[in-house]
């Protein structure tokens, strides 16, 4: 398949939609909106997987699509909403990097992804380059979201968006073996994180799990040189007081 063919164009379109949704995720200021955008991305991913299944006539991809839709478009967003409600979290997204700045960083990251993907596949299959650039962008944007957002929900969403990028890449390659298993395993990982957020009652951010006040020094005392540490070696002769012939 090449440019101009409908199957490819649709796959491409779906990939582009995911990238767009990644930007939307990055752009949102309210937690609710972030969750909604994520659910949409999950739905688009499911559609992309299903489309690829139809195109490659690989029925297992329908399973992937089903799993992705169920988990990412329905169950996980619901769970996240429940968490937000239950824990009475802030409704606004706290950013470590301003929205504008993170958008710009996102554009830069996408540019890098394209730059990296450009020299690849020279000559072989030009379209793989596009697929790769899209998936890579989604992955990197997910990661960017994890580090530019302070609240736990946004960070979890970032991780899941990253994982969406993985699955997008996996379903996009023709004949990828174990694709169902791998995408499911990746999903399990994400579910674990969500469960962790739930179990550990992480209200605000990853960094401060609210299970108590963690020592600032991660279990270690503040560094204070010990007596033995203070002098690596004593001087040659301790100035001992001596009475005696002073010459």
């Amino acid at each position, binding site marked *: 398949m090449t440019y101009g063919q409908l199957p490819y164009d649709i796959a491409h379109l779906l990939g582009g939609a995911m990238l767009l949704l990644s930007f939307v995720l990055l752009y949102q200021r309210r937690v609710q909106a972030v969750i909604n955008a994520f659910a949409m991305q999950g739905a688009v991913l499911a559609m992309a997987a299903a489309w690829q299944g139809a195109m490659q006539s690989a029925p297992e991809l329908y399973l992937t699509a089903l799993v992705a839709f169920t988990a990412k478009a329905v169950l996980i967003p619901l769970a996240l909403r429940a968490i937000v409600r239950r824990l009475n979290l802030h409704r606004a997204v706290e950013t*470590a990097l301003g929205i504008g700045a993170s958008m710009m960083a996102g554009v830069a*990251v996408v540019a*890098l*992804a394209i*730059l*990296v993907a*450009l*020299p690849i596949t020279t000559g072989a299959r030009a379209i793989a380059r596009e697929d790769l650039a899209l998936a890579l962008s989604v992955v*990197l944007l997910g*990661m*960017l979201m*994890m*580090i530019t957002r*302070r609240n736990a929900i946004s*960070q979890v969403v970032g991780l899941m968006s990253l994982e969406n990028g993985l699955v997008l890449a996996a379903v996009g390659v023709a004949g990828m073996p174990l694709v169902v298993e791998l995408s499911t395993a990746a999903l399990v990982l994400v579910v674990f994180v969500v469960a962790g957020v739930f179990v550990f009652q992480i209200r605000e*951010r*990853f*960094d401060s799990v609210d299970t108590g006040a963690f020592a*600032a*020094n*991660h279990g270690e005392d503040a*560094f204070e*040189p010990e007596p*033995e540490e203070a*002098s*690596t*070696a*004593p*001087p*040659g*002769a*301790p*100035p*001992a*007081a*001596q*009475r*005696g*012939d*002073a*010459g």
Partner: protein
Amino acid sequence: MLTAFSLVLALLLLLAVAAVPLAQRPAGARLVHGGCVAACLALALLGLVVLLAGGAGPPLVLPFGPPWGHALLALDGLSAWFLMLIGITGASASFYAMAHPPVRPAALPPFPLFLAGMALTLAAADAFTLLFGFELMSLASWALVASDHAQLENRRAARLYLMMAALSAACLVPAFGLLAGHAGGFSFAALRAAPPSGWLAGGVLLLGLLGAGSKAGLAPLHVWLPLAYPAAPAHVSALMSGAMAKVAIYVLARLLLDLCGPAQPLWWGAPLLVVGACSAVLGALRSNLEADVKVVLACSSIENIGFIVVGLGLALAFRGADLGPLAALAAGAALLHALNHGVFKTLLFLVAGSVQRSAGSRRIDRLGGLIHAMPLTATCALVGMAAAAALPPLSGFASEWLLLQALLAGWRTGDVAFQVLAAAGTALAAMAAALAAAAMLRLFGLVFLGRPRSPRGAGAHEVGRLERWALVVPAVLTVLLGLLPGPLLALAQPALASLLGAGASAPARGFALLGGTGDAAAWYLPLTLAVVLALAGLVLVLLVRARSPLETQRGPVWNGGFINPPEHLPFGDPLSQPSAAGMAQPLRRMLGTSLFAATEEVRLPPPGDTRVATYQAGFTDPAQGWVVAPAAWLRDAVAARTERMRDFTIRRCLSLGFATLLALLALLAWLEAH
């Protein structure tokens, strides 16, 4: 021969293992040390046989070794010479330990291991085995230094010691790496076949000097030595100074003179000469300032190691200038001095151990007058100290005579810069020798002469029967080595051959040592000198006693008219005797203030005030301030910086990872674009 050597090595390892259960009982400790005596004697004998035979044939391939090959053992002249040395000193030290097993059980198992490590280093015929033995030796001796770890200063000493050992490994391994990369193999035969040149060779020189030098105790990496030697039990100090430092010298000689090939330029000698001469002076001066018997001896070791390295440096330079006989002279001086120092320093450390046990202290200011209570120990000590002070006709002088002859011939290299360096080296060596004499005099005079300075010291007694032999044997050896340096050097012929090539001939003829070249060479005839001295002494005594027949009479001390001590102070006021600080005063003022930043402070109360006057003296080793302290500061500063990363939150950790990923991707893009 090599099979026998392997068996001895196996015996030592077996002893080390057996020592673990045996350590609890004194009889067990005796047994282990007795085994060590036997093993050391066997090693010395092996060394002797190999020297007589001129080599032990092709290397022995051990059935085990590093995972990429086999360990190789070989004994050439150089190995055999040093093997003989550690055999002799090891046997003396073990024998002493047999007489007085160390108190701590923890000091037993590492001892045979220590000996085995040294022997393995000497017999190694590939770089891996050599460094394996070298580091094993360091580790075992660290355990010995740390065996009495209840005391803080011992722990500090042990810590610094092992760190320095790690430093020497961190330098020696790359040094051999540079050689091996050039040669394509670790065996000495392969290394010899492809000697390095240019910058590569310079790197080997620098790393070798740093690595082996720090282990031997060359300035400015000697700071550990005055701490570590005293911390160990006496027989271990004896072995560390007498044998272990020599093993480091062996590595230096093997690396620079043998493995780097004969084609190295003249200037190679210069760093060794400079470092050696500076160590000699610093060590000798510091031994004049210290107040602890074993520390004095340890500093004197720095001085003697400096002499040996000067000899090696001169040998390198002479070889570079195509002066074969002079190179043999310098190398012969180094080898002979290594042996001599090994024996007399072993003796002195053993004496220090006896003094410590008998008089209860190592501090000079608590000792005194021991010649009355321990006449035999005092005699042995005098022999050792006279040798250390380079007095004829004892052993120390023979080798220092050779060394001075080599230095005085330094002008023959024809390179003005090196000539000036050699002249300065001559001055420094002479100064070090005189300072050593001053230090030994101070030590003997304060410890054995005069009056006791403490009640515990007054209650000292002569050493036991077995221990006595442990002192007498090395003392006799010291005398013999002094009288027979000629035959000994002739014996060292194979060693010189492995350092300088087959053509090298030992600077000795019969019983005489030969300095310089050609007909005009100077001679040193120790045996003749001894006979002349003895004859003259005999005649003198007979003459004087004929003219002056009256027996001596005893009376109170004159002391320039001072009054007698009161009854309640049977030895007089101990503090009216010269003290360790007082004896050090002239040199402290003359040299110490500039070299060691020595300070003195006298506090005299005003007239009428009954408080005692106080006198404080102290100094800092320049290496401490210029090398160790900045290194520690730098380490802590960098560590503090790296530590900031640890307080990162998870988000920042992720950011760092993300940044790495992006950087790698950008790098990839850039690389592929080009």
